């Protein structure tokens, strides 16, 4: 009987015990720094456009340098790694620059418009050239609070009830409901606005006038289909996180489903449900297109969400965005900063609650 050949493959050639040459550290550093320096020198010397320089000078230099160093130190697998690292860092930097630029522009430009009266005053008697010392977004903040508040008032209970239906009951429509909630989350906001506009405002059903004029409450309704899926989905996740054993514990004591939910599941999911509400509000607080279609812009403060024109932060920003005057543009940036801050606050609250929940969950284990 011939002996089996167990050495079909050549053994890997790497030698783990071999001390890596300390020179390599220098090579890697050089490969990271030199192309940059070289690119800057060439760019300045030839007076190149920065974009052109980045793409046509820096990137090729960097690739050549890294790949050759990678090849020198690690062999073939070093080349692929070098490319992966370069592309990851290049694109990540691009993302970082773009996203930081968004934040930075809004904060820096917004702060110029910011002042106590910008937050508190309304827009009456303000012309495009009025100095920033007068007028502000006070009326728009109130309008946003009213309209979003009204939406929240009926969306949060409905969204949570849908989540309860999906997680706590064995209803037959569950998969249908889940699919439709999912579908609703794909509804373009402008279509939601158009739907409500055509249904309630535009002359319809053979009438000469619509059912109502543009008003705050119509805007609230137009925001409803946009907020509902967010609330329902996050609330569903929160309820799902409540361990089944807790519900079983309640049922085993002889609790009816309603009380098991009310006294055991709901308190255990409370922070998650608040997160759902907060993220739902964050979802619609800057929503613009539906409000453009369903509310009429106003310069004065209107606290009646059921009648008359009413301003909101997004529509205020929308109306100032394309004005030619510098002060008007700064008002737009100011409004953007206020929206940013509101979203940030809602988001931070949700995160704080979310992490409090997860530490509690860890403790249980």
């Amino acid at each position: 009987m011939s002996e089996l050949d167990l050495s079909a493959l050549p053994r890997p050639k790497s030698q783990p015990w071999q001390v890596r040459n300390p020179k390599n550290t220098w090579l890697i550093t050089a490969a990271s720094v030199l192309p940059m320096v070289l690119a800057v020198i060439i760019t300045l010397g030839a007076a190149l456009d920065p974009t052109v320089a980045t793409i046509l000078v820096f990137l090729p230099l960097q690739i050549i340098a890294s790949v050759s160093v990678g090849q020198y130190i690690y062999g073939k697998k070093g080349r692929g790694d070098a490319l992966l690292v370069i592309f990851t860092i290049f694109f990540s930097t691009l993302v970082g620059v773009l996203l930081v630029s968004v934040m930075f522009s809004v904060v820096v430009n917004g702060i110029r418009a910011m002042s106590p009266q910008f937050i508190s005053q309304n827009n009456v008697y303000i012309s495009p050239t009025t100095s920033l010392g007068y007028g502000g977004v006070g009326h728009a903040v109130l309008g946003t609070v009213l309209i979003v508040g009204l939406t929240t008032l009926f969306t949060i209970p409905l969204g949570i009830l849908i989540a309860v239906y999906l997680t706590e009951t064995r209803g037959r429509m569950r998969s249908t409901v889940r699919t439709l909630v999912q579908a609703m989350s794909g509804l373009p906001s402008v279509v939601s606005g158009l739907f409500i506009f055509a249904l309630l405002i535009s002359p319809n059903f053979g009438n000469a006038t619509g059912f109502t004029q543009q008003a705050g409450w119509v805007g609230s309704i137009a925001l409803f289909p946009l907020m509902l899926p967010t609330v329902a989905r996050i609330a569903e996740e929160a309820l799902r996180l409540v361990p089944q054993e807790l519900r079983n514990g309640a049922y085993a004591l002889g609790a009816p489903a309603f009380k098991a939910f009310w006294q055991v599941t709901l308190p255990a999911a409370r922070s998650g449900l608040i997160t759902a509400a907060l993220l739902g509000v964050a979802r619609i607080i800057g929503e613009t297109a539906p409000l453009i279609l369903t509310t009429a812009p106003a310069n004065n403060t209107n606290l009646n969400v059921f009648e008359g024109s009413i301003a909101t932060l997004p529509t205020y920003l929308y109306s100032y965005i394309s004005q030619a005057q510098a002060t008007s543009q700064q008002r737009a940036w100011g409004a953007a900063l206020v929206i940013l801050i509101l979203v940030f606050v809602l988001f931070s609250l949700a995160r704080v609650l979310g992490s409090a929940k997860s530490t509690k969950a860890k403790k249980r284990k």
Partner: protein
Amino acid sequence: MTQLQDSSGEIPPRRQLRTKPFSLADRVFYGVTKGASSISIILVSAILLFLFSQSLSTFQAQGLDFITGSQWNNTKGDEVFQIGPMLWGSVLISILGIIGGVPMAIAAAYFIEFMAPKPVAKVATVMIDLLAAMPSIVIGLWGLYVLTPVVSHWSELLYTMHHVELGFASFDIPLLSMSNGKDPNTFGGTPFVAGWIVAVMIVPIITSVTREIFSQMDRDLINSALALGGSRSSVFMRVILPTASGGVTGGVLLGLGRALGETVAIFYVLNLVSDINWFNILESKGGSIASLVLQKFGEGTSEEVKALMAAGLVLFVITLLVNWLAAVIVNRAQPWRKI
């Protein structure tokens, strides 16, 4: 003495297990949740039915030209409503946004999850999630005043390359040239600029989904691949990407759905022209359905509003398909995750 059990006897008939509650409180509880859930059914069907019934006359009057034609005229008697340029514009801008956004998003997710030091990764994650929740009007403002000049400049640079002169032949690169062959006087208001803004909008969304999928990946899988002597790049190409591809595709489609329906972020940077712009992405001529709705709804005649609803319906149906596809792909690839 113990007894041996004989269980070979006849199996008794199955019994009906009651799944419905007995007590009144429970029945009310289930009833209320069921009622609330029916609202979602009613709402979506109402939107679809209403839009459909309202747009029926437009569909009948315009026929298939509604989608393929490119005229828009609301003069009484000569009404023509066709959304070809707008529909294609929405698609073109979304494609540009995806082309620009996806590499950025995957790179950023890979960086956060596998390369960045912990504190950097944490801050970046929060930033990305926050930006994913950023209202589009804010992105629109930034896009108009900050990004547009930069991208217009890039467009200018790209345009300088549109004409290729070889010794024996010279021709224009279609993608970079103008449909009328003339040099443009502006590089703003182009699908290219709008595409970039959409890219910035969807990058956080796709990054967020991709990062989460990367973070849920089995670390043992990656470590065992590394233990086999795999390099960073081969592990990424052979292990990470294939494992995560379903989820990432879902995330990309989610971003695409968002991009298609985007309105105010690109409304001011896009030059709406009712003339189809197939691929001259640097030409200041384009459209999007959402922008069309926003531009026309106010002064519209009732026929025009109906045409807009037809356009909205087309848009909704497309986003529905995209979102449905995203859900199917994500659910298949990542059963534990539901979007």
